């Protein structure tokens, strides 16, 4: 499908300006008459990055406007140019070697033509940015209050140090940091992820900007914390009338937080319009494709029900009725003495041959530690893991693992074929020619070109690398694979393809899967049973539809309620429900 520029066929009432035209037809900077009233006006923006000898066009003729107090979402997959647009609004490309074309006006300032002084006045005071990773985005050495105060004093040098500190405490209090006066003296590492993101939002609010540019503000956060942060942004917007430009890869995040949205692909706008219209009745095939790929937490699994029977029949040697893999009261501790933490505490699980067990939980819930114990990469401190009725004492070929990050879990200095061949060579039963033939088979089985054998990991996309990881796990002919966040690093369309591949392999080979994920929707789409983990303990376990449709544990209910939904009306209703629910609790 060829990428398209914003078509003139938008539904009525969208924010597409008349000046929206093909790139190249846009007049040079300064020639465009300032649009009346628009807080942000972008016309024919192009951004080229120098790469090697040539350039790569990250943004290609983008135009949009955002009215004062409005909220616009920009969504797209990785490489679509959405973050580049956000940075261009603040002129952050200056001095980086990137070449910009077209005009960007923010509150009357022409960002491309502005002097360094004008640009500095704009940044923070008129347009404030909220970054993705709140830990690395704050200075680790300084107290957060001092950092916020510094930003205020940069814009108002007459402000005394003391007054700036007082105001910093006030904004921290405003964004819901408890005990703000004391916490203002804490350093970033002393906060939780969600609290840190609140601190960054406090910094954004410090100079009362006219627009907040939030670039993936919740991507690094757990789903319940994500909901709180999005609620906060919404609250800030309704109370202060600040405009919001929200950049995200997550359609659900955008659905509940903005009025209008742009769908970007390859640096161009594919579709734009009010959120309800774009998500409810997408006009463009690409938007439909994106929407179709988003896993839905409310939809039951689409899976032929006879698969498991077939799988069970296909594998010989299973002890009758017994589970394939069984964890009995496993516990894992890390550290010693005062530093000791319990990552997994007394967890018992079973996985039958051919079935999929989903394990969901937020960061720190112990799900990865549990997964590693299931394949015996980690020894349990207490309890046992039994495979086919016998206690596992070490890693074995029958139980394999697929890792989260396909970049760092493949050796960059070995060809992918060699990586897949490693487990076969380790077994030592095949000749070299047989190994090569088998690796080519495996690569083909996971949907890669068998001739990819001699290529290196960096030559592959994220999805392809994950396919290599799966091929490697398949090599010793396992009967169970533990997949630890296999798709969390991937775009939704790629994610859907990988999940499909796993389902197909499961059907063909009769594999049992343990799927560990933080994404509740992903888990629902592929699991037969699900276990919900929190703080090292399984709080609820059962058939997937029972757990999702009638959760018993309050934590499961909270998790499910926090999942972003694609319907803006439903999102607003849930937000109201959450506000009611948290009214009696302290935010956090």
């Amino acid at each position, binding site marked *: 499908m060829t990428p398209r520029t914003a078509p003139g066929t938008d539904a009525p009432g969208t924010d597409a300006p008349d000046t929206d035209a093909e790139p190249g037809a846009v007049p040079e900077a300064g020639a465009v008459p300032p649009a009346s009233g628009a807080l942000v006006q972008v016309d024919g923006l192009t951004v080229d990055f120098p790469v090697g000898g040539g350039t790569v066009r990250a943004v290609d003729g983008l135009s949009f406007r955002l009215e004062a107090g409005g909220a616009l979402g920009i969504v797209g997959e990785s490489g679509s140019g959405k973050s580049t647009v956000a940075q261009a609004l603040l002129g952050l490309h200056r001095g980086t070697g990137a070449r910009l074309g077209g005009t960007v006006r923010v509150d009357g300032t022409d960002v491309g033509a502005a002097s360094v002084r004008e*640009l500095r006045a704009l940044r923070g005071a008129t347009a404030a*940015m909220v970054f993705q990773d709140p830990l690395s985005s704050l200075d680790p050495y300084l107290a957060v209050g001092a950092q916020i105060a510094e930003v205020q004093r940069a814009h108002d040098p007459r402000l005394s140090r003391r007054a700036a500190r007082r105001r910093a405490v006030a904004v921290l209090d405003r964004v819901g940091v408890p005990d703000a006066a004391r916490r203002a003296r804490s350093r970033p590492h002393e906060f939780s992820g969600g609290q840190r993101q609140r601190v960054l939002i406090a910094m954004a609010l410090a100079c009362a900007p006219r627009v907040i540019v939030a670039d993936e503000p919740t991507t690094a956060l757990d789903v319940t914390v994500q909901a709180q942060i999005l609620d906060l942004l919404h609250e800030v917007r309704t109370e202060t009338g600040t405009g919001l430009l929200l950049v995200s890869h997550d359609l659900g995040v955008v659905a509940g937080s903005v009025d209008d949205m742009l769908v970007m692909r390859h640096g161009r706008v594919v579709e734009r319009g009010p959120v309800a219209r774009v998500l409810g009745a997408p006009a463009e095939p690409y938007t439909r494709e994106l929407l179709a790929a988003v896993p839905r937490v409310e939809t039951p699994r689409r899976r032929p029900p006879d698969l498991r029977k077939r799988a069970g029949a296909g594998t010989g040697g299973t002890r009758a009725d017994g589970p394939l893999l069984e964890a009995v009261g496993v516990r894992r501790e890390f550290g010693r003495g005062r530093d000791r933490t319990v990552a997994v505490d007394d967890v018992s699980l079973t996985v039958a041959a051919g079935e999929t067990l989903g394990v969901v939980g937020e960061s720190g819930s112990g799900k990865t530690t549990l997964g590693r114990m299931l394949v015996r990469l980690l020894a349990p401190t207490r309890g046992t893991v039994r495979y086919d009725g016998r206690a596992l004492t070490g890693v074995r070929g029958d139980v394999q693992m697929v890792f989260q990050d396909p970049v760092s879990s493949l050796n960059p200095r070995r060809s992918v074929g060699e990586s897949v061949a490693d487990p076969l060579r380790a077994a030592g039963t095949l000749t070299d020619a047989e190994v090569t033939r088998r690796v080519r088979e495996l690569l083909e089985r996971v949907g890669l070109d068998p001739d990819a054998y001699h290529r290196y990991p960096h030559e592959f996309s994220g999805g392809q690398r994950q396919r290599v990881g799966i091929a490697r796990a398949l090599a010793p002919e396992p009967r169970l694979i533990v997949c630890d966040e296999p798709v969390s690093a991937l775009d939704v369309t790629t994610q859907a393809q990988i999940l499909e591949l796993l389902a197909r392999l499961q059907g063909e080979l009769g594999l049992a899967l343990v799927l560990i994920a933080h994404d509740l929707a992903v888990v629902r789409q592929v699991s037969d049973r699900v276990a919900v983990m929190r703080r090292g303990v399984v709080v609820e376990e059962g058939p997937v539809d029972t757990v999702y449709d009638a959760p018993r544990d309050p934590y499961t209910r909270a998790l499910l309620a926090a999942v972003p939904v694609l319907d803006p009306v439903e999102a607003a209703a849930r937000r109201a429900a959450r506000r009611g629910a948290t009214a009696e609790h302290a935010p956090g």
Partner: protein
Amino acid sequence: MNALLSGARFTAKRLVGAALVLLVLSVALYSLFYLLPGDPARLACGERCDPSQVAQVRERLGLDEPVHAQYAHFLQGLFTGRDYSAGTSVRHCAAPCLGLSHQNDQPVSTLIVEGFPATLSLAVGAMTLCLLLGVGTGLLSALRRGGITERVLTVLTLAGTGTPVFLLGLLLLMVVCAYLRWLPFPSYVPLAEDPEQWAWNMLLPWLTLGLFESAKYARLTRASTLEVLAEDHIRTFRAYGVGERAVVARHALRGALPPVIALGALDLGTMLGGAMITESLFGLPGLGRLLIGSVRDVDLPVVVGVVLVIGTAVVVANAVADVLHALADRRVLPS
């Protein structure tokens, strides 16, 4: 309050660690006596001693005792002083007693105390110069990255790292004292005697050692500044309109300096043990010269004493640097 407590605990832990390292060092050094070929008593007595004199020396220095007892006496001497007695003559060696020099029978501690002012003068002056120069050029070349300034500075620092210190010192001596005659050939004047003369005479040694050492600080500062400048939090403050100067001074330097401080502490410790080549070159009566002389004369108590002092200086300087680092970056402290 809690932070203060964990800070105090951290400091205490570091100091205990330093003490343990020193203990291990002292054992290793003491073994030198026994690992080296030759009889320590004969070494102590000298070439022309007859066996009865050697026996007398052996008794006097306690070399006839078992090894562990000798080490215990050595440790005890460090804290309480000890007496060396043979027959009727008693020689007292006062509290940090490191033994007596074989060469002139003086307490080693006295020799070290005599040599220390010159070494301290050289170390502090050279280190100050080196940090100013090294951090300054490193920072400048990081900020002017890709420009002509950076290229010139890179060449200069490369030349600096590549020039041996004795060559640099000789060149300076030749040009400044012999050819241009801006300064007389340096000769050490104690600070207490005449501060002005002290400074003038120390100038060339400071320059020699400071220039030589500054090159690696320039490279380290440049690398670590560039690393910090690429971090996300620097982008945050730029995106909030904080001026470039404040971004560098308040945020980049704070992150870039800890490795520089750590290296500085290590080097300062080494220099406090005597910069041997520089001291010899400029005739400074410091620990470095003392060490070279004692090694040449196989004056084991002096060698052990001076090396122990160097070790102490390095270990203490490191512990101090660790505590400073923890003060700057609280993440280092266990929560």
